[in-house]
């Protein structure tokens, strides 16, 4: 049985979703973010 090819719209949607996820992932490595997480670690250690 032949598998149906995914539509162009679906490919674009998944591509965009993947791009958005990777973009958000990269935001975690902004310098401000790193400082905030480090501060958070210190804060949690103090609890």
């Amino acid at each position, binding site marked *: 049985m032949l598998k149906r090819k995914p539509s162009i719209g679906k490919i674009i949607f998944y591509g965009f979703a993947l791009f958005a*996820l990777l973009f958000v992932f990269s*935001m*975690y490595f902004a310098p*401000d973010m790193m400082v905030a997480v480090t501060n958070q670690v210190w*804060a949690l250690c103090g609890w």
Partner: protein
Amino acid sequence: MKEVLIYGGLMVTLSMGIRHGFGLFNLPITSANGWGRETFALTIALQNLIWGAVQPVTGALADRYGAFKIMVAGGILYALGLAGMAISTDVMNFTLAGGLLIGLAQTATTYSVVYGILGRNVSAEKRVWAMGITAAAGSFGQFLMIPAEQGLLSMFGTQDALLMLALMASLMIPTAFMLREKNFTHNHNLGDQTIKQALKEAIGNPSFRYLTLGYFVCGFQVVFIAVHLAPYLKDLSSTHPAVGAPVVATTALALIGLFNIFGTYSSGILGQRFPKRYLLSAIYIGRSIAITAFLLLPPTPMSTYIFAAIMGFLWLSTIPLTNGIVAQIFGVKYLTMLSGLIFFSHQLGSFCGAFLGGYLFDQTGSYLIVWEIAIGLGVFAFLVNLPVKERAIHRVANA
């Protein structure tokens, strides 16, 4: 169905996302007001406790009067709570705004209430899939809002960032209007069972009790790791300096968030095809295996990233499966209330995970014993989910 999925997803994206970044406000707020960190900790603890304890009541109200009205009230409370946090200069007002108002708002805008709408508007064949999509939307909200809230904090400062979040939270009100069930009536052709009868029926059902116990474990493991993984990594830095670098904790956090989206989405798809109780058991034992391997293997950044990715995949994937089983067994008339009742157990587990993590660390100087408890509980949850009976009880099957 498409509308319910889109707006239900948006609702949990906002409600789950906004609260997820609260930890970032801890130091800016406490240092600006000269408060101790316990002030912020108490506010968040109160918020979680209220969310868990009041959820069954809000659920019952939503099932009785319609989820739409409850969600509108939730959106208003969420916005007021955030605005209150922004303008509070004393501890009591801050705790009431962030703890009480936002805790109550969460009972009205998160999974349980949205799942009630899904249950009534999506066919049984697609229900768990739809729950998976919505859970993935909530996971995306959590993933997105941490860096977004950090960006707001950096650009506008604490007070304005909180006011902007209040504005964002107010979007829940029009979203709730989009989720209005036009044909909602209390009976909704779903039988004439009362709330009291529904509660008695659920509590007397062994499968419901097993699911409740399993959800306790879910809360314990997830919150223990969320709160204590970063300090654990930092402690390791004395013997393994590479693991204690800030970039490792940040990457682990980001990976948990990212893989959580894939995990919740996949569990919805798998739950539609395979017995949900076995999937739940697999998730719990998977967590125990992952924790065991993480502890036994030499700690490196890579082992931490792999652990974070696996735990992220298993993070909230229990939500669509657990709620799907509840809907399958008891029907959807009181789904929000019953889902809320199980969620209360989740929040008790969360409290124990956060509290015991800190308490036992203070007593023993190590997280090892809590990790071992988390592993043992995972095995317990694996076993306790196996005998769950997924078929509809007699009343629902004959309806």
